[in-house]
C-alpha cells in the first residue's frame, strides 16, 4: 500500500527578554543553578505573576510578520501538570484565546517550488526548569533558572508531507525569528525546540491516521533522522496489520531511534482553566501599530529586492537572505566593492565554505565585510587575479592582514605589464617546441596547456586575460 506522511510541528522558541515572563528574575543562559529563580518562579504562596510587556511585544511582532490575526484580547490559562520542574504544579499558558491566531509561512523548497504552511496559532507561555537525572542515586536534581522564561509556542497545521518539508519549514521559521530579533535561535542551548507530530494514512484517504509526537529534536539534522525513523516504524506496524498508539516518543540521537516516553494522558487531564492570578490582556490598536513599525525587512521581501536591485538569480538571493546576518554581511560587502555578482559568488563560495569548515558563526568570522569588499576591489582593478584572490582570502582568514598588506608582503600583485607577460609567453613557446607543432597541426585543446605553463611561470600572477590574448597572437 502507498502511504502518505502527515507532519505538523510545534515549536517552542524562547523570547529574548532580559527578565522572565511573569517575574523580574534574569533569563541569562548558563548562570549558576537556581541563582535566577525568584519567589514567583519557585511557586511560593502569595506570589503573583505580572506579565512582561516585552514578551507581549515580541509575540505580536511574530504575529504581524506572518500576517496572522492578532488576538486583541488574550487570556492566560493554567495547564495542570505535576512535575518538579514547575513547582506551582501548573504551567501558565494560553488556551482558548491565544495572542496570535491563524497565519501562514511560505517555504521555498529544494526544487524552488513554494509550499505554504498554515500556522494554527501561536501562544505565550512560561518555560519549565531543568531536571537532571544523572549522578544522583535516588534523586533528580532541579535547576529552576529556566522556569518562567518566556516562550512562544508556534503550532502548524498538519500541512507537511515529508521530513524534508518539515525541515525546510523549521529552518524558515528559525531564520524568521532571528530576523525579527525575538529569539537567538540557539538550538544547543534550547532556545528553539521542535516537536513533530507524525502520522501515516493510505494515499487518497481524507481522514488522518493516529499520530505520535516526537520530542527531543535539538538539531535540523536530527529532525530529519527522527522523522524518517518514525515514518518507517509506523509503516512497518501498519503493514503488519497493527495499530499506532497515540503517544509521546523521545528521539535518541545516539541510537538514531525514537522510543516511547509515556502515553500522552488525555488532553483534559491538563484541566486548563483561566488563571485567576492574571487578568485578560487587551491590546490597543496603537500598541500593535507601534510594533508593526519595528518590523524589519522580512526574508521574502529582501529576497525579491536582492533579485531586483543586485540582478541576482532567485537561487542566489534565497541563499543570501536565508539568515539575516549573512544578508547583512553580503550587503555590507556590496557597499564596499559595488560588485553585487562578484560579492555573491565570494560570500556564498569561499566565505561560507570557510565558516563551515571552521564551524564558525558569522559573527566570529576573521574576515569582515570591509576586508572582503576591499579584496574584491583589488580583483576589479586588476591588482590581483581571481585565482590569486583565493590565496589572499586564505591569508586574510588566517589573520595575516587586509588585502593590500598581504599582496605587498607576499608579492602577489598581478602582472599586467604586457612586456613581462610576452617574455614569459616566448619562454614557454621556446621550451615546448613539440606542443607548439602539435597545436599548429590542429590539436587546439593544447591551448589550455600553454596558459597553464605561462601562469605557472608567473607564479599565478599574470593577468589571465592578457595571457590568453598574447598566447593567441603568438601561436596564430
Amino acid at each position, binding site marked *: 500500500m502507498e502511504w502518505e506522511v502527515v507532519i505538523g510541528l510545534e515549536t517552542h522558541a524562547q523570547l529574548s527578554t532580559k*527578565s522572565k515572563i511573569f517575574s523580574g528574575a534574569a533569563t541569562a543562559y548558563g548562570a549558576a543553578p537556581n541563582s535566577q*529563580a525568584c*519567589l514567583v518562579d519557585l511557586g511560593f504562596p502569595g506570589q503573583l505573576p505580572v506579565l512582561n*510587556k516585552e514578551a507581549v511585544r515580541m509575540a505580536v511582532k511574530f504575529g504581524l510578520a506572518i500576517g496572522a490575526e492578532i488576538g486583541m484580547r488574550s487570556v492566560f490559562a493554567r495547564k495542570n501538570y505535576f512535575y518538579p520542574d514547575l513547582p506551582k504544579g501548573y504551567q501558565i499558558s494560553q488556551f482558548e484565546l491565544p495572542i496570535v491566531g491563524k497565519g501562514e509561512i511560505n517555504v521555498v523548497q529544494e526544487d524552488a517550488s513554494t509550499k505554504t504552511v498554515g500556522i494554527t496559532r501561536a501562544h505565550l507561555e512560561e518555560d519549565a526548569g531543568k*531536571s537532571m537525572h544523572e549522578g544522583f542515586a535516588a534523586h533528580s*536534581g*532541579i535547576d529552576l533558572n529556566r522556569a518562567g522564561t518566556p516562550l512562544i509556542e508556534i503550532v502548524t497545521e498538519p500541512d507537511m508531507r515529508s521530513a524534508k518539508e518539515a525541515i525546510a519549514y523549521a529552518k524558515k521559521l528559525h531564520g524568521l525569528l532571528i530576523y525579527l530579533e525575538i529569539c537567538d535561535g540557539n538550538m544547543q542551548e534550547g532556545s528553539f525546540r521542535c516537536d513533530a507530530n507524525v502520522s501515516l494514512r493510505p494515499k487518497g484517504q481524507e481522514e488522518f491516521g493516529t499520530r505520535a509526537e516526537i520530542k527531543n529534536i535539538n538539531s535540523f539534522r536530527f529532525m530529519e533522522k527522527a522523522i524518517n525513523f518514525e515514518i518507517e516504524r509506523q509503516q512497518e506496524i501498519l503493514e503488519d496489520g497493527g495499530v499506532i498508539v497515540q503517544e509521546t516518543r*523521545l528521539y535518541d540521537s545516539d541510537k538514531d531511534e525514537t522510543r516511547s516516553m509515556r502515553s500522552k494522558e488525555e488532553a483534559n487531564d491538563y484541566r486548563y482553566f483561566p488563571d485567576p492570578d492574571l*487578568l485578560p490582556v487587551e491590546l490597543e490598536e496603537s500598541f500593535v501599530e507601534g510594533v508593526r513599525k519595528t518590523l524589519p525587512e522580512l526574508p521574502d521581501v529582501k529576497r525579491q529586492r536582492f533579485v531586483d536591485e543586485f540582478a541576482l538569480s532567485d537561487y542566489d538571493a534565497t541563499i543570501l537572505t536565508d539568515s539575516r546576518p549573512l544578508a547583512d554581511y553580503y550587503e555590507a560587502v556590496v557597499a564596499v566593492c559595488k560588485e553585487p555578482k562578484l560579492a555573491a559568488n565570494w560570500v556564498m563560495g569561499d566565505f561560507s565554505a570557510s565558516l563551515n569548515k571552521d564551524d564558525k558563526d558569522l559573527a566570529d568570522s576573521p574576515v569582515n565585510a570591509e576586508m572582503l569588499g576591499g579584496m574584491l576591489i583589488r580583483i576589479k582593478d586588476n591588482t590581483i587575479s581571481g585565482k590569486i584572490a583565493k590565496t589572499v582570502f586564505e591569508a586574510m582568514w588566517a589573520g595575516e592582514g587586509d588585502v593590500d598588506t598581504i599582496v605587498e608582503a607576499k608579492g602577489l600583485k598581478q602582472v599586467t605589464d604586457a612586456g613581462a607577460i610576452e617574455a614569459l609567453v616566448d619562454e614557454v613557446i621556446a621550451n615546448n617546441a613539440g606542443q607548439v607543432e602539435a597545436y599548429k597541426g590542429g590539436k587546439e585543446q593544447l591551448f589550455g596547456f600553454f596558459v597553464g605553463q605561462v601562469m605557472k611561470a608567473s607564479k599565478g600572477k599574470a593577468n589571465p586575460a592578457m595571457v590568453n590574448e598574447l598566447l593567441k597572437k603568438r601561436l596564430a
Partner: protein
Amino acid sequence: MSIEDSDIKKIAHLARISIAEEDIPGYATELTNIMAWVEQMNAVDTDHIEPMAHPLHAVQRLRDDVVSEPDLREAAQAIAPETEAGLYLVPKVIE
C-alpha cells in the same frame, strides 16, 4: 451526572491526595450530589453570553522588561528538604 468510583480514583490521583478505599463510595455519592446541584445552571440560556475569563472588569497591566529580583538561592535552599551542588533534590523523576 453520576460520579463512579473510578472517577474518584482518577481525581484523587490528579490531585495527588491519598484516600482510603472504604471512603470512595461516600465521596462518589457526595460529588454526584454536588454535580446535580451545579447542573441546575444548565437550565440557563447562555448562548449569547461571552465566557468570563475573570470576575473583575479590568485589564492586565504590563511590567517593563527589567531584572529586579536578586539571587536568593541561599535563603531559598536553607528551607529546602534537600539540595546538592545548587540543585533542589526531589524523588527521582523517571520518564
